[in-house]
Each structure stands twice: as C-alpha cells, then as structure tokens.
C-alpha cells in the first residue's frame, strides 16, 4: 500500500477521524518520507523539549521535537545517564501515543441500559461526575463502626490507576479521595 506524505500527515496529526485498520498498519510499513521530513525539521527549526518515557520504570529521558506546537518526533536524550540517547521499541514509539488517529478527543457518555455512546460536553460531564461522587459518598458514608470506632469513610467508591501517571496527579488523587473519606484507592503497583 502506498501512502502519500499528505495522507500520512493528515492522519498523524489527528485530523483524519477514520480508524481503518488497513491504512494504519500500512502506515507502519512506509514511514520513509515522513521520517525524512522529521529529521530535516529537527535539524532546521524544531524545538526540543525534555521529557521522560511513560512506559516502563527505567525512566529513559527523551527529547520531544515540535514545529509550531505540533509534535514531529520523539527520541532519546543523549545526555541521560540512564539511556544515553537510546530507547527501546516502546520508547521509540512514544510519538504514536500522541500523533495517532485512534486517539479519542471527545468525552463520551453511555446512559444506563443504552446501546451506544453519546458525545458529551466536557464541563457537563465533569459536573455530572462530581454530582455522582457526592451522591454516592453521602449515601454510603460510615462515621463509625457499631463498636463506636470512628472511621469516617466509604468503601463504595473505588479509585483505580496511577502507576503510569505523574507524581503530582497521584498526590492530588489520593488527597482528594482521603479528604472525601474514600479509602479504596489502588494502582497497578498492586497487581
């Protein structure tokens, strides 16, 4: 399958909404023109921003190359004492976590019993989630056990996730949950 540079850029910039499997796999096999372009830009006028690989725990440092605010390339940071500029296949593909037409960019909502998603406005969805959290917390809050032990908590909301996410988020999430009294908080470190 031949993919023109224009097609590649269109899908890689997330403008194309189609997720046809064939064309994606096809793209994986023919990157030469795009790579050449990325290299060129990196040298000429791309801006390099230091970042870190979000996959495994080795913590390989990366450089993110952008042109006009658009990510064009991500590669290993040669200064890093961990990876000395190298990356493994996953690290080398961080670019596609960002520039990927399969990526969702809208909030979706599925009503109870519904068979399809509905696109929702971001603020509306946030308002609804806050309302549900409050409702569930208030309905299930346990101030004390029958023997009088004060516990001020609920086990009816489960907060899951965190090991691939920033320290700052982990702090905020566990703080908000504990502030509310939500005690079931877990991430991938458990399993």
């Amino acid at each position, binding site marked *: 399958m031949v993919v023109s540079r224009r097609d590649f850029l269109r899908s890689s910039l997330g403008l194309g909404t189609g997720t046809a499997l064939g064309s994606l796999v096809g793209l994986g096999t023919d990157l030469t023109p795009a790579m050449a372009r990325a290299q060129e830009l990196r040298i000429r006028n791309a801006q390099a921003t230091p970042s870190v690989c979000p996959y495994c725990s080795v913590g390989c440092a990366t450089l993110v190359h952008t042109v006009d605010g658009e990510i064009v390339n991500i590669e290993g940071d040669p200064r890093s004492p961990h990876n000395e500029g190298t990356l493994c296949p996953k690290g080398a593909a*961080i670019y596609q976590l960002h520039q990927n037409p399969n990526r969702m960019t809208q909030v979706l909502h599925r009503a109870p019993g519904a068979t399809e998603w509905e696109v929702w406005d971001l603020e509306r969805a946030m308002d609804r989630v806050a309302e549900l959290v409050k409702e569930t917390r208030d309905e299930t809050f346990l101030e004390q056990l029958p023997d009088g032990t004060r516990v001020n908590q609920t086990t009816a909301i489960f907060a899951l996730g965190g090991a691939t996410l920033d320290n700052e988020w982990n702090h905020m999430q566990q*703080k908000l949950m504990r502030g509310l009294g939500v005690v079931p908080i*877990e991430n991938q470190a458990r399993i």
Partner: protein
Amino acid sequence: MEFSDCVVIEGSNMAECHPVAFRWPMKAKAAGAKLVHVDPRFTRTSAMADVHAPIRAGSDIAFLGGLIHYVINSERWNGDPFFREYVVNYTNAATIVGEEFQDTEELDGVFSGLMRYTGGVEEWPFDGFLGRYDPSSWDYARGPDRAAAPGRRGPPFDDLIRSLKRGQPLRDETLQHPRCIFQIVKRHFSRYTPEMVSNVTGCPVDRIVEVAETILANSGRERTTAWAYAVGWTQHTYGPQMIGCCALLQLLLGNFGRPGGGIMALRGHASIQGSTDIPTLYHSIHGYMPAPSALKEHATLSDYLRSEASAEGYWANMPKFLVSYLKSMYGDAATPENDFGYDWHPKIIGDHSHLPMFVAMAEGRVKGMLCIGQNPGTSLNASVERKGLRQLDWLVVKDNFLIETATFWHNAPEVENGSVRTEDIQTEVFFFPSAQVAEIDGSFTNTQRMLQWHYKAADPPGDCRSDPWFTHQLALRLKAMYADSELPRDQGIRNLVWDYDPDEPHEIPGEPDPEKVLKEVGGYYTDDPDRHLGGFGELRDDGSTTCASWIYCGVFPEPGRNLSKNKEPDPPGTIGAHLNWGWAWPANRRVLYNRASADPRGEPWSERKRWVWWDGSRWTGYDTPDFALQKPPTAPADPNGIGLDAHSGAQPFIMKPDGVGWLYNPAGLEDGPLPTHYEPAESPVANPLYSQQNSPVLKYWRRDDNRLAEMSEEYPIIITTYRLTEHYLAGAMSRWNPWLSELMPELFIEMSPELAAEKDIGNTDWVRISTPRGSIRAKALVTRRMRAFQIDGRIVHHVGMPWHWGWEGVVTGDVVNEMTALVGDPNVSIHEGKAFVCNVEKA
C-alpha cells in the same frame, strides 16, 4: 550495576522487559562481570548470560534457599574473615530469638503462632485470609525493659516515643548460641541441599552449584554481586518472602549498601515507584506510613503513633512525618488541640486492595469507580472483574484510547456470546480522553527512586485533558458543594487544603500548577510558605512544618529550584552517582544504607569498592551518605537513647530499630520470620519439603467463578505469564499503536517440542488453554525456549504466555487473564499470576 562483578537476574527477563536498563549489566559483563539468569524460560536475557539456571515457576525460595545452604557451608565463606565481620556487625545474625519460637523444620512447614483467622469486621467481609499468625513468639530474646513512663501527651511527642523503648535484644557475637539467628537460619535451610533443590525446582544439580560458586567468587571485600528481579518474584502467594530470601542471601554475602551490590527491583511502570511512595494505594499514606485502620490500635493520633512508631532507629521521627502530613491535608484547621485533624482522616476497615475490591464489586457492594490509566476489563480472573463493572452505578474511564474497561458493556466476550445483554447493564459510563506525557508538565519517579521532570511540548488535542486537570476540576466542584456544610462528617473535605490554581493563566483553562503540588509534597514552613524545606531533618511535630511526604522532602528546597528538573550528568570517565541528574529520595541518595560500603571503623572495605567513608571528621564519598554526617564510626550506642542515638556509629541500617539488616524478621510479615518453600496455590506437584503444601496464610476469595484446580490430571501443566518488549501490560498504551502492533500482532503460547508432540500440536496451530476459571485460544509457538522439568521423579510440562491482548485496539486477541485466579499473598494481596496450572489441547 555497572560496578557489579556478577549480576544475577531472577524473576525478570530484563533484556526484553527493561531493555535499556539491561545495557548496564551488559556493560558490567563487557568489563568482565558474570551474568546469571535464573528463569523457567530461555529468553534473550538467558542468551546473554554466562549461566542459565532453569527452574520451574514459583520455586525460587527453594533455589535461593539452596544457595544460602551452599554459601554458609562453603569453605570460602567460612574462611574469609570479611563475611563474618560484615554479618556479625551489619546483620542480626548474632541476635538471639525467644524460647517460644518454633521453626518450619520443627512443625513440618508452619511456624509457631498459626491460628484460624477470626479478624475483620462485619462491614467488610472481603479480607480473604484463611489463617493468620500471632507473631509474638518470633520476637528477639530481650534484656530488661527500658520503657520510660508515658509522660505528657504531645507535641512534642518525645515522651511518647521514649515510652516505646523495649529491652535490648540479646546477642552472641560468636554465632554459636543455638537460638542465635545465624544458627536458626543454618538449621532452617539444612535440608536445602543441591540434590533436594534440584528435586524441587527441576534445575540440574551442577547448575545450582555453578551459580553458588559464581556468587561466592564474586562477593567479598573486593567484589560485589547484584540481584535483579521483577514481577516474576512478586506475583506469588509468597512474593515478599522470595525477595526476603534474596535479601538474606545478599546480607550473608556482604552485598548490601555497597557499589555493584544490592537487590534491584525492576518495576513495571514509569511512575509505579512514585505511586507507591505517594500512595494511590489503600494500605498506606505518604512515605510508607500505614493507613490509619479500624483493625489496629489507631483510635487517636497518640494511639496511632504508639502502635506504629518505634523508639529506636529513624522511625522514631514518625510524629514529625505524620503531623507534617496532616498539616498538608488540613492546613490551618489542623491544630494541636484537634490532633491536627486526625479524626477527619478516614480509616480503612480491612483489605481494600484490587482483588477484594472486585469481589466486593461483583457482590454489588461498590457503587462508583474512577478508573484512570488502568484497564481492569482484561485484568485478573477477568470475567469476575467485568461482573463487578456491570454492578456499578457509574464508572469513569479516563484514557488515551477506548480501552476494554470503557467498552465492557458493548462488546465484552460475554456480551458477544449473548450471555449478557447490553440493555440489562445499568452502569452509567463516562469516557474522558487524556493528555499524554509530552502534553503536560510533571514528574515521574523511576525504579531507582529518581524523580525526573517532563515538560509540556504541545497542547493536547480536542477535549483531551491531563489527569491533574481532571482531579483538580473534580476537587474544585466538590469543595464548592461542601463549602458550607456543618456536618461533622464533611469537615475533612471542607478543610482539605486545595490550592493548586496557577498564578499565571495556563494555555489549557483549568489546569492546576504541578509545581504547587510538588511543593506541598516536598514541604515548606507553615507560617512562611515561600520558605521550602531543604530536607527531612527540618521537619517538626508541632505543626510548624507542612510536608505531605517526608521521603520527598528536599526535592524542591527553594522557590524556583525543583531538583527533579536537574539535567547535569557526571562528566564521562568520572566515578560517581550522577547526583545532579534528577533527584532520588531520600535526600538524593543513590545507594541505600551506604554506610555499609565502609567497614565498622569507617574505612572502605577495599579500594576497588570505595563508595562512602569516614574521613576523620565526617562521612563523605561518591554518594550522599546514608548516615548522620558527623557521627563517628566509634560513637557508642546509648542504651537509653531514642532514634539514631540508640545506634552506634557502626550500625548502617538506620531505618531498623536495631540498626542492622534483618536475616530473620522478628516482626512485620504475615507469613513467617523466614522464607520457606511452599507450592503455589495451584501446583501439579506435592511439596517435596514439607507436608504443608501451600502458604498456610495465603489469601483466597472463595467463589464459584474463582475455583482453584486440585492436583490432578485435569490441569497438569504449569503456566506462567510475561511481557513482551513491544507491548505494555494490558495493552492500553500499545495495542492502538500501529508501529508496536505490527511488530507484535498476535497472542501466542510458548511450549516445548516435547509437549507439542505429546499433544499433536504443530507450530502456529490454534491451541485451547483452560483453567477452572476460563478458557481461551492462542497460536502455538513450539520452541526449545520452553522445557519440561524433572520434579520429584517425574516430568512436569511448563508453558508460558504473554498477556497483552483484548478485544479492542488495532490488534486483538483473547484475554489471558480470563484464566487467572483471585488468590494472593497475605502481606500485600498481590495475586499469583506467575505460577498456576492449566491444560492445553489442539483447538
């Protein structure tokens, strides 16, 4: 690892799962080090190793126990005075254990103190315990009690800490006393001979001896050996004991606190270390303090400190850590009069970890779930987890792609096969698209405890938002809803400090300022928030310091100096620890307990292994010393002292109450003071060492859809699971990525040519794999990388499967976790995903 003379990789396929880190053992190898790989499979790690020791999955304690047995009975270990000097001074080998203690050798596989489990509360019947130990008989024999009278209630809490003093442990530095730990260890492993270990593990005798000789030759004054493990050691019903067994061996070999030594935990995720330190985990609060619990004596702040702090060692400072944490939670509302808001802080009422939460969810006990960056739709005993999701009133999924957890109601296997109807699923589901790493500012903590900052390079597309944005926006809304509540139960959220709005408007409206978050984690002076804390030595227990995480204290020592942003590597050719690249907790130390890199007199053990030493007036070296900087090696211990005063200048393990490394754990573990070989919860083999088959205290959640296989012909094959280089975990970050998916498109099962011949299976044939929980299909990969093992006189087959697939994404495949069980370790509730049993048939 670059400084190691030998690296043993066990419970990890480092070359494929931590590929870039593997360059360091390879560099060591290029400089002459030996590389050993202990694993059921012959992987790319084995291919690079000098020695590959094949053992069946789950038999590592037998293997390590065999090494311990060999080492302490060897001529080299008994002949070189280094080992005795290290072990007598830096470990609890000389400490004497109380008379009541009985070992597994005496009780045929259990320790003294085993009881039926009667704990837990009615409100939370999901703890999963079958049995439990009363650990009181495991304690040291002690001299007269030295506790001071309770005295005044804090702050300051010094009187409280002094009241926790206990009698000094009794010691015999000749290591001859029959109840000294060295002798107990020696007896405990006396039957772990190479022949017995070969019988248990399936590893040939000569290979066991070769590994033992290799580590002995590469440990000592001049040489160090390192161990590396990954989830191959954690996903068992006795995972912490495997790691403890390795620690025991490494302490006996004098390999802790020294360059090129130690045990490297190769963790799986970019910030899994961070999310453990900053615990989005139910059982702990910041900096490894246990979560307040209704099941322990935690009713008040003083009760909590009394049951969790220790009079000796660095944990004597817990009042400072806890009070500074509570100040970070409740700010000005946290006062000495109200115990710094301790009562507002929720208490756990049992095990609220992943496995019991999904059991509770499947039973309709959980109403809502926020799932951010995790994919339980394909997780353990996956059909039970999805049953749980169907019982929820609401579910929020926040991720990059539409992962299985978001679409469980639409096209999960049970929906596709008609046993569940979408219309009957009453869960309200939200999907929020996420910003990715290069689109946000923030820090990760890697597996070496190092924080590294990543910068925002581009805006996220559409409605994609960062995870901090989501939690911040949720918090702002909830804070507003509770702002006027006078109800006592709402005072925690009402008083919760939430001050993360950026000073300058962010390009993405509503984004919080991550440096404000990091500042709160690292800490500042309460009355002058612009004065940041430089290190945990500055923490106070009176509320004058605010610090969420004492171990991260110092990461942001002054405004504008976020040390996780450091990017200055050491110049090429210098010996050093790259102290200006990122920032590692605690206090930017790279090797923990590094006082042990010097001998008791403070001299380097050898020129070759010089790391941290006493220069006559202070501790200095290539790393930040992990010791009181001015405390001379000759300083005596103060028997009445608290904190580090109770330790001498020659006790390197400053977090331990007795200042030494523990060969034997007198307290702290649920399943015994020493590691003992048990069979996995499911095994085709009867335990060759004891009549006790499994850990007597493992956790198991009994349900019809969580049946365990009996030892029988129905499920005779050992199965283990693992990761591939090209995919990531449940696939959420790789299966939608065309490059990676093309490299590794399909699920497969690896099996030996012998098993394939027995089952008439050819390479690439479809195979059906079954356990009592589920049955899936995969293509056969018939390969010499897998082998059958000779165990206890018979052949046992072994297969292995990667587990990255699901029904969504660019490439799809069956969910391997349909087959796993909800059964886990009693200390940490990790499931046993690395060793269970199955059957295999041509499909």
